[in-house]
């Protein structure tokens, strides 16, 4: 829930101004807007990478404005993030990349292995688990990033343009996974995108950003 939040990278240039919106647990949310409108900035504030200049932002019951590092780490362990540029660890193989949230959350090795195998199977990359990110195509890397975001069954999934540069096959796989996370795992899903797919199988909320203001589109 956001109340009058303003976001800026430096105090002179405000990107989001006095935004008010609410996202409930289990919602499927799209945030749209023109390039440079502040979509990604808003998403970053949800995982505490950018703190609101003022107002109040509550994520998963935790106010992120003045959150301590320890509490922020705890919050992030319950969030799965998908970045447009994948952000995979280059010197780790695919299997280890997907297992990252499980490692951070202290899962036992055997449970982690089962979960990673299951997710790599879902994203159709079981055969490439020993490969390194740079050996995969963009679409494949995004599917790995998606598997990593889902690995620890997060309560909140944040995705920044998850299908921005992908082919139809990879895009469809990603949307299916996001829908599945929402319907089966009851995770709240917040997606920043330019295009909302027409054939989406879930109901969703839609926020649009224009001129630094966040509007809900009914």
């Amino acid at each position: 829930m956001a109340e009058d939040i303003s976001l800026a990278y430096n105090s002179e240039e405000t990107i989001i101004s006095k935004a008010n919106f609410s996202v409930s647990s289990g919602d499927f949310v799209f945030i749209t807007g023109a390039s440079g409108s502040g979509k990604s900035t808003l998403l970053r504030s949800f995982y505490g990478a950018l703190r609101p200049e003022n107002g109040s932002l509550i994520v998963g019951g935790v106010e992120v404005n003045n959150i301590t590092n320890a509490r922020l780490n705890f919050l992030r362990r319950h969030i799965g993030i998908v970045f447009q540029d994948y952000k995979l660890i280059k010197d780790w193989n695919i299997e280890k990349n997907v297992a990252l949230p499980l490692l951070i959350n202290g899962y036992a090795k055997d449970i982690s292995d089962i979960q990673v195998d299951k997710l790599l199977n879902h994203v159709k990359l079981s055969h490439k688990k020993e490969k390194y990110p740079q050996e995969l195509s963009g679409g494949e890397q995004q599917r790995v990033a998606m598997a990593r975001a889902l690995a620890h069954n997060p309560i909140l999934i944040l995705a920044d343009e998850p299908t921005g540069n992908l082919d139809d096959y990879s895009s469809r796989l990603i949307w299916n996974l996001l829908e599945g996370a929402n319907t089966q795992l009851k995770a709240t899903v917040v997606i920043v995108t330019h295009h909302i797919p027409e054939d989406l199988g879930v109901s969703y909320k839609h926020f649009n950003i224009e001129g630094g203001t966040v509007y809900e589109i009914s």
Partner: protein
Amino acid sequence: MRSVKNHLSLIIALFTIVFTMQIYIVIERTVSAYEKDLNKNYSIVVVTKKSVKPEALVAISPTILAAEELSTKKVLEHLQSQMKQRHIDLLKLALPHFYSLHLNHYPTPDEIVSLRKKLQKNQNITRIEDFSKSHDTIYKLLLLYKSISILFAIGIFAVTSLLILKEMRIWQFQHNERMSIMAMFGAPVWMRSAVLFRLSIVDAIIASILAVGTFAYADFIHIGSEQLHEIGIDVLVFDTLNDSLLIFGVALSLSIILATLIVIGHKEEV
């Protein structure tokens, strides 16, 4: 390949530092052994009008370890063939007393001056011979030897520190992304930094093993110790236990400081 190269840079830098440190330790030991040797053969001779107890001379300065009277017997025996016994007896009565003062360490030129002043205050002492001319020459050479070794160590330390700083920047760049990604998934600082610490500790251990191996081998084939023995100095070039512990300690501390600086300097991507 690039990773191996980066590892090598840190290993070489750490090896150079611990190697230089050990060389400096050997020089220090040599100088110290030489000082001890000089001190063993060094004494100040004082001449007194009347006989004094050696304890009274020792009490003049804490630097004086012991005092012993030098016998005049040999001198008188030498004169016996040239002088009459009566004259010898008279000479015996008139002859001053000679004392050799042994010091508890090899004195600096300033200490000799200070000691001479203290001795001169004693009315009974008529003459002091401190052999300062020969002392000064030897001591100055010793100090020069020490200074050169310190300059050498500082120079090497400065160059290798620059190398390590350069290495640190490369590592910071390499590890920054991984640490940021881990942070975004809620990894605590220790977990984000674990890989970095592990790598730097491994490098420190490799550099230490190389240094310990080099010195242990040099000691085994008597490089250095033999040459020093030839000039009358017996020193331990490599103390297996203590020196190994010191080398490991210094290398590990440096690499941990390096990793800590990288962790402190890490800025999370937003």
